[in-house]
């Protein structure tokens, strides 16, 4: 890891140290477990969004896609609305639905040549609409023991969901480092036009990246459903900006071509620790958002200090 990548991990350590000094509740094992458990869903969403950001695109579709997959999974596993009891298959179908929605953003991007900002915003609305249609006014609650168990049961002190998130980060890292898809996503962010000159057709890779991202959001939606034991249309509310913030705080550039899954994972922990710490040290709820915003800006500012150059471009 080069020096320019060291900023966010240092910021993470500093934040941990500061909160540990300020609050004895913060530095307990239980709270660290809690931070990890809380970070799980955001981590999975961020895995997806990181690939999109790496390409230099943006993705605002997480709320809609998560909502659709949350309701879908709640209606497919054992629940109070119908007689379905598909278990793992239900989860798979929900993730596939999410991947299909992600694919839709990608297709609109490459076929209609509409910027991803808009296609994903549109797909988010479509996802919410689909979720509302499936919701049909009655809350679906799940009774599927396995899915409920993901949130409750623990292995080595962490909830299964946390391990799923760890698995996603690992998988994401492998894809980013060793698969053509991951490397090309990275390259597209670096110089898309060059890929075309080298005879690489970028369109399929773009669609694939959005599809992959959709699948991650879908899994995140399933995880929220597991946590709440209920499918919520609003399951993904706010996760779009939270995930982008986490990725950027971790050192992924919005202009693409820099950063990666591990950066984003650091960003997720940073944001989650911050949210948790502010509650632990007892900052007033009115001020929490503001203090968090300030610290994020400060953290990013501190992280860019070593790489500040005169003629550097910041967008």
């Amino acid at each position, binding site marked *: 890891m080069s020096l320019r990548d060291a900023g966010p991990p240092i910021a993470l350590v500093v934040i941990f140290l500061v909160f540990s000094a300020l609050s004895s*509740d913060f530095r*307990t094992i*239980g*709270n660290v*477990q*809690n931070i990890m*458990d*809380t970070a799980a869903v955001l981590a999975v969403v961020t895995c997806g969004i990181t690939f999109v950001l790496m390409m230099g695109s943006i993705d605002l579709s997480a709320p809609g896609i998560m*909502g659709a997959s949350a309701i879908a999974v709640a209606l497919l596993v054992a629940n109070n609305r119908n007689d379905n009891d598909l278990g793992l298959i239900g989860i798979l179908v929900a993730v596939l639905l999410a991947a299909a929605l992600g694919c839709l953003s990608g297709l609109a991007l490459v076929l209609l040549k509409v910027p991803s900002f808009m296609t994903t915003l549109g797909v988010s609305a479509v996802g*919410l609409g689909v*979720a*509302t249609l499936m*919701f049909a*006014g*009655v*809350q679906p*609650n799940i009774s599927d023991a396995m899915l409920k168990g993901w*949130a*409750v049961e623990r292995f080595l002190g962490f*909830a299964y969901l946390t391990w799923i998130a760890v698995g996603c980060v690992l998988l994401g890292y492998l894809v980013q480092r060793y698969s053509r898809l991951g490397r090309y996503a990275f390259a597209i962010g670096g110089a898309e036009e060059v890929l075309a000159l080298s005879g690489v057709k970028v369109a399929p890779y773009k669609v694939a990246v959005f599809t992959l991202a959709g699948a991650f959001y879908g899994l995140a939606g399933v995880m*929220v459903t597991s*946590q*709440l*034991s*209920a499918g*919520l*249309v*609003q*399951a993904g*509310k706010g996760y779009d900006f939270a995930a982008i913030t986490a990725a950027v705080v971790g050192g992924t550039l919005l202009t693409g071509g820099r950063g990666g899954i591990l950066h984003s994972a650091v960003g997720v922990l940073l944001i989650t620790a911050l*949210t*948790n710490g502010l*509650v*632990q040290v*007892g900052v007033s*709820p*009115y001020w929490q958002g503001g203090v968090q915003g300030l610290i994020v800006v400060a953290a990013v500012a501190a992280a860019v200090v070593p790489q500040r150059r005169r003629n550097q471009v910041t967008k």
Partner: protein
Amino acid sequence: GCSEEAGGGGGGDASASGACDPADVKLVGQVRNESNPYEASWLDGGDAFAEQVGLTQERLTYDADSTKQQEQVSQLLAGDTDCLVMNILPNGDSDTPPIVEGAQDAGAYLVTQWNKPADLNVTDYDHWVSHITYNGVESGKQIGDALAEAIGGSGGIIALQGILDTGAAKDRFAGLEESLAANPDVELLDDQTANFSRDEALAVTKTLLTKHGDDVKGIWAANDDMALGALAALEQAGRDDVAVVGIDAVPDALTAIQDGTMTATVSSDGPWQGGIGLAIGYCVATGELSVDDIGDEDRAWFAEQFLINSDNVADFSAPETDEADFECDNVFSRSQGAIS
């Protein structure tokens, strides 16, 4: 030059009591969204009433977005407003005045629910027929007391507040404070907002549980959605010794009370609320009821509510609206008195 008119049409007629042909009445129900069981059931209640009088209800939702609500209402009022009846859930207190003024100017019949600034008087208007709400202070206190009782009168509790700038959140929390004053051994360990959201309540509760650990004996939530989020957090933390209370009586909360995982909630009757607003407006629009004849105490009133706990939960598990509630001479039957 400038003028105040936006072209012709509209304009309030002198007398507020209408003489609309029942078939010409246009019924509109507006809530935040249909992806929430309580508000979906509200609109269903409106549909039921509309069917009762042989009409249909236009269902509007505004995504909990104040601006969008105003925009919809002003667009609505730019249409034909002579026999328009609106049953509206304003997003927040501050959203009520412009809706009221708009309806007044356009001559539409308006019933609002839940949110209204305290100093805005219904009696100052003749097209704003009625404002209905539940006594938030009362409900906050009721569940506060129930919680205190459930934890044996002493111990630590945490509070999950609603969206901080809504009257409902503030009233309910004020009720909790009253209850705390009456139960001096109950200690409020922490209060945080979870914005009326199940998801946020889950995260906040988890954090508060690690912060206060076993000191937490009870959780007071300003609505049932947050209470359900708190229940999920308790389950994940492996805690079954914490009492949880909420407000709204959504079906899941009733189930939880039946299962014994939740202690108490307070009824708000979505289907009735969806129907009654339209009913009052319909009666005035068709002239069966005259605004002048409605007593001041029925212009802004608290609707009847009940504390629901394991004793009486069975009575509420299938809320039913009674068509008789919507008869013109019966529309104020659930009043618990004027809003003070």
